[in-house]
């Protein structure tokens, strides 16, 4: 800190019960401009990797479901892929379709949750209420099919735990069909609004080179022109059996990150409809019945709503893994803030931090201390206020 200008430190975090990843950001601010950002985590380290070493392969599925509340099926999906890779087995066709259906339903509700929060942050509470209203039927369908709105406990190494009954299929189809016009409405609201354009276009640029250097994944990477999606690139589940597209855009800004997510919902709907159609003919077992796990390495990944979830499982031939490494997408996406936030204003940073979808929208508290006077104090709501005021100014 050699600059003569008055530099303010703005800590964001470190803890909020609504957030799946309590982190502590430290913004170094000169006037309105962010000149540096630092990150500290570990406030809610639950030692899941270590806990996994004391559990059986089947029990770990339930454990990893608790890594994240919103992607509660992505971690078990990736973990079961890893165990299946370790055993070198292929799972029954019906199980593949069911896995993909649950995975895509989760993607829809997660993206809608994000769209709602982004709308709230921008000062568009109507978008927030619409998005969360449309998310509700998705959760209801998940509850009807799996028994839970979240943490579905559907995955198991070698297949799925529960079948999707034929009588459930019309209800799921009805729900996804009803979602299409609602999504058109949301997409229209985002695409046609000049103020949203002004707030999000050209803001928080993550260049393709930076995305590669940080190993960014998911919509964060795809909005920066990286054509990667492990659902397509490493075929698993039913993703290579149905027709769908990977959404890639090239403007690298917050607007594109939102666009990628909104357009992905349409692709998820396409996947679900095709898988449901296949379920009508793909009768048979839903579980490959893994009896024992041989010694060796297993790598499994799955494209969670936020990006690639990576699980590495090491076995010594006993009943539990001897090492289980989990890498969630935010672990590689959050460090990209170093590339996207510097040079932006504080009101935009609120949005950029949210654009990666670490659920940091629910910023718990923020205290801005003027290093010279040590007086000024701001809270989380002030951060939202700053962002909303900027939108209000642009509207005029």
């Amino acid at each position, binding site marked *: 800190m050699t600059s003569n200008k008055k530099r303010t430190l703005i800590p964001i975090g470190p803890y909020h019960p609504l957030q799946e990843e309590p982190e502590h950001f430290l913004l170094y601010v000169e006037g309105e401009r962010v000149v540096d950002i630092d990150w500290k985590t570990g406030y809610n*380290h639950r030692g899941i990797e270590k806990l996994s070493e004391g559990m059986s392969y089947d029990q770990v599925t339930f454990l990893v479901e608790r890594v994240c509340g919103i992607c509660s099926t992505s971690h078990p999906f990736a973990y079961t892929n890893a165990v299946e890779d370790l055993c070198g087995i292929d799972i029954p066709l019906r199980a593949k379709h069911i896995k993909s259906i649950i995975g895509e339903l989760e993607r829809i509700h997660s993206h809608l949750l994000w769209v709602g929060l982004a709308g709230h942050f921008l000062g568009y509470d109507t978008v927030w209420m619409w998005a969360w209203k449309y998310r509700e039927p998705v959760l209801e369908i998940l509850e009807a099919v799996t028994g839970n709105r979240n943490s579905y406990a559907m995955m198991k190494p070698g297949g799925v735990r529960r079948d999707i009954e034929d009588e459930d299929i019309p209800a799921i189809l009805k729900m996804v069909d009803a979602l299409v016009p609602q999504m058109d409405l949301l997409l229209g609201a985002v695409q046609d609004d000049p103020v949203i354009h002004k707030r999000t276009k050209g803001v928080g640029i993550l260049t393709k080179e930076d995305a590669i250097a940080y190993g960014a994944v998911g919509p964060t990477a795809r909005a920066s022109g990286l054509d990667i999606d492990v659902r397509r690139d490493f075929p698993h589940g039913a993703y290579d059996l149905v027709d769908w597209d990977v959404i890639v855009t090239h403007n690298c800004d917050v607007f594109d990150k939102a666009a990628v997510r909104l357009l992905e919902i349409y692709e998820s709907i396409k996947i679900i409809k095709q898988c449901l159609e296949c379920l009508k003919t793909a009768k048979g077992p839903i579980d490959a019945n893994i009896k024992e796990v041989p010694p060796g390495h297993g790598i499994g990944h799955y494209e969670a709503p936020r990006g690639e979830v990576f699980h590495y499982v090491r076995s010594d031939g006993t009943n539990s893994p001897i090492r289980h490494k989990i*890498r969630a997408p935010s672990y*590689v996406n959050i460090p990209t803030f170093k590339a996207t936030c510097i040079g932006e204003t504080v009101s935009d940073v609120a949005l950029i931090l949210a654009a990666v979808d670490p659920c940091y929208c629910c910023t718990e508290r923020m205290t801005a201390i003027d290093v010279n006077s040590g007086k000024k104090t701001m809270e989380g709501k002030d951060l939202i206020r700053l962002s909303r005021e900027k939108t209000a100014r642009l509207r005029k």
Partner: protein
Amino acid sequence: MEQAGQIDPIKDLKKTFQDKILEFFEKSETRYYILIKPEDLLEFVDHIFNKLKARYQIISAMDTPKGIEIIYHFAFDKFGKVVSFRTILPHENTEIESIAPIITGAQWIEREIAEIINVKFRNHPDPRKLILADDWPKEVFPYRRNK
């Protein structure tokens, strides 16, 4: 991602490093594990990341009876393959070169491995603690199995 045209990355790795690969293990058509010496690490990582344009995924570390095993995972999305470099550090000298100067994204996981399993990453640009509390006891490493 523009990944080195049509060259098969596995063939390229085998050809480029034929003298330096200690053990090549093809688990399946999509998973490859290559055991390397710790001193050759940077050469391998530089080649796979900068020349073959692999995507950096993550590093994992575990304490084994033979030493601390560190595994560097890279994905070739266009080819649908994951290549993992394995290297084993003896317990008496758990030091290895940091790959963060080549891959910015590896900074955080190296900081995490350093504090949970006690590996020293030489030339790491920012060797602070990441997940453990600042007042965590100095000689306690939660993922170490030996005392």
